[in-house]
């Protein structure tokens, strides 16, 4: 009986078979891989190199006839000496750190609870995962209603808990509260994602390990710190990597929610970059900005992936 390779060979039209005949396996492999490499070069590598080139020029995309001058490191000097850009980086750091901390803590706790067998387990999982299924634009839009001082449900809940007047504070208008408003919404939306990854980690731990620990009379607390946490850690680190990269380039949710305000208080780097590139049309400047962000994310991801591999090898 013919094997699959023979069947494929006999089904190949003679004209194609004639052309392919005589090519080495390596050449055929290159023929298959070449389109992918070409697409990668065209849509990933070339734009990257072009952005680096533009970052050294005064190019403005809305002035195609203006002479493009090489201005050296001036764009980088302007960005890295600008107090507004510095404030934007701080706003991004605040958003990034707090969203990750809260999402990991709440996500892991939810996963730990959901992992226990109880009635309605699947229903609760579906309900918790629901926010993640919504579009960020929709979430941003309806949270602006929830945050309304006069009619917002969020303000009423806070006033019910604290006794404060609901119209006495505005989450997206107050300079002290606005950075927390975007943290709360992102945490509400993306905690289920972290929960799902942690749940996968928790369910991958064999029961036999806990049974062995029970035999050794290890307490629940000790089992948690010496079995559960070390075995879920690679999954947790992956969740942090995904959320970290996603939140570093957060745009739609925050634009819809606060528009970067009040003032520039919730203007994250991606929003600032978009304004420089497509509102002020300073393409060279925006390219330098993008290069700085790229190097930062690339560097962080490199050390993070290395740490992740080390944890996996343990």
């Amino acid at each position, binding site marked *: 009986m013919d094997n699959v390779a023979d069947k494929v060979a006999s089904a190949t039209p003679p004209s194609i078979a004639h052309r392919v005949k005589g090519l080495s396996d390596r050449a055929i492999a290159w023929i298959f891989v070449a389109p992918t490499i070409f697409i990668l070069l065209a849509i990933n590598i070339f734009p990257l190199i072009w952005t680096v080139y533009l970052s050294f020029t005064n190019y403005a995309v809305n002035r195609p006839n203006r002479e493009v001058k090489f201005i050296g490191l001036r764009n980088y000097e302007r960005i*890295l000496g600008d107090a507004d850009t*510095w404030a934007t980086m701080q706003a991004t750091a605040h958003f990034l750190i707090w969203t990750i901390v809260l999402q990991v803590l709440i996500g892991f706790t939810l996963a730990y609870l959901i992992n226990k067998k109880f009635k309605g387990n699947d229903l609760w999982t579906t309900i918790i995962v629901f926010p993640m299924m919504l579009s960020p634009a929709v979430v941003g839009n309806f949270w602006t209603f929830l945050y309304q001082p006069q009619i917002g449900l969020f303000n009423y809940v806070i006033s019910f808990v604290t006794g404060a007047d609901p119209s006495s504070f505005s989450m997206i208008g107050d300079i002290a509260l606005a950075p927390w408003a975007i943290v709360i919404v992102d945490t509400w939306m993306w905690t289920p994602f972290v929960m799902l990854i942690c749940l996968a980690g928790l369910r991958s731990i064999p029961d036999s390990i806990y049974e062995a620990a029970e035999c050794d009379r290890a307490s629940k607390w000790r089992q948690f710190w010496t079995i559960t946490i070390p075995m879920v850690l690679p999954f947790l680190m992956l969740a942090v990597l995904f959320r970290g990269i996603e939140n570093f380039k957060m745009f739609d949710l925050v634009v819809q929610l606060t528009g970067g305000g009040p003032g520039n208080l919730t203007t994250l780097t991606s929003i600032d970059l978009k304004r420089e590139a497509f509102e002020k049309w300073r393409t060279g400047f925006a390219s330098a900005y993008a290069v700085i962000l790229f190097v930062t994310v690339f560097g962080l991801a490199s050390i993070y992936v290395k740490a992740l591999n080390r944890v996996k090898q343990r």
Partner: protein
Amino acid sequence: MSNFFNDLLRLRRGAWEMVASILIALGVIMLMQPFVLTLFTYSFIVTLVGTVMFIIVSHFPE
């Protein structure tokens, strides 16, 4: 500690990756800290040096 410096002199990957990682982390902290503008100004060059170093030293022998 002396092992670490020996590994650096013998161009071993682990030690050099550690140096590169510290530079990257330092650069990112300098970029996002809210205290001194000068640190922000020099953050990119520190991160860039760390990142390029990380790419190079990851090809060193173990």
